[in-house]
């Protein structure tokens, strides 16, 4: 459950005690961005881009039952977080491989839909987070903070239209699922996964390993 952090005294000792007592909340973080919607706002009216944004958000969220996992929407970008505790309790798609496959399938459906006038293509970054806390500084809001959330945002800079960037940490989780299901490592969208890339992101003290899957 989210912990609301709000202390008026900037030198409060209690805030330190409270923050130290909050445990990490491991889970999967997604950033999803809808492409070209800014261009569209200059080229067409609200009825056009508003409709396509509505359709695309629906296809990404409701068709995958992610609607309760959305934390923030900023314009055409969304941040979602699926805590492990919640993932393992789901009736369906209760594993990392399932999350990845369904995101891939959504991007595939959008890209290959026979009617190209209803959706907008997307780009995605996915990271498995361990350094993350379910806290908020704003009343009645749910949020997650931590260095792994920031890293997911950094990974997003490596994504382009119709591409999923997956951190090596998340990929390892997916591979563990495949071992559990007795499936080969090239199952589904993983047949097209890239070799490992290594990047030094600004502000991140260690190198980050990631791979990409193009839809």
């Amino acid at each position, binding site marked *: 459950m989210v912990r609301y952090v709000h202390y008026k005294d900037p030198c409060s000792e209690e805030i330190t005690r409270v923050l130290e007592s909050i445990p990490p909340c491991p889970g999967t973080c997604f950033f999803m961005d809808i492409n070209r919607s800014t261009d569209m706002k200059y080229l067409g009216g609200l009825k056009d881009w508003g409709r396509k944004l509505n359709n695309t958000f629906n296809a990404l969220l409701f*068709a995958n039952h992610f609607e309760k996992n959305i934390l923030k929407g900023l314009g055409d970008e969304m941040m979602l977080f699926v805590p492990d505790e919640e993932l393992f309790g789901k009736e369906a*798609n209760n*594993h990392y491989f399932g999350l990845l496959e369904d995101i*891939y*399938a959504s991007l595939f*459906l959008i890209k290959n*839909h*026979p009617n190209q006038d209803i959706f907008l293509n997307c780009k995605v970054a996915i990271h498995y987070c361990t350094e993350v806390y379910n806290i908020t500084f704003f009343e009645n809001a749910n949020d997650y903070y931590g260095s792994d959330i920031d890293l997911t945002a950094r990974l997003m800079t490596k994504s382009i239209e119709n591409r999923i960037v997956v951190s090596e940490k998340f990929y390892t989780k997916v591979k563990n699922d495949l071992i559990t299901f007795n499936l080969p490592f090239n199952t589904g969208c993983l047949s097209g996964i890239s070799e490992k890339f290594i990047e030094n992101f600004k502000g991140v003290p260690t190198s980050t390993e990631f791979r990409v899957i193009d839809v």
Partner: protein
Amino acid sequence: MELTLQKTDKCSIVSIIGRLDTTNYSILEKKLMEMIDNREDRILVECSKMDYVSSSGLRILLMALKKITMAKGKFVLCGLQDNIHEIFEISGFTNIFEIHSDQEEALKVF
């Protein structure tokens, strides 16, 4: 998920029973692609006992539709439960697939 197959003089009927998701969509994919490759291009997918579909399942249906359309065949769905119909609607599938309420109605179009 289970698949059952039935051949009539009009078409092949594939019935999906249970949940079509990331762990089993490849079974449906293999079966449909095998049928299409064997020129069985008049296919009815019976969904009345399919109680869950994920995007991965939808992807296979779209791929099958595209392949059969190119082969000038017919790919029809029937018997979608309400929750499944909603997912089809959100995904823009109700406008591209021929969907009938039940098998009896669907068979009339072949």
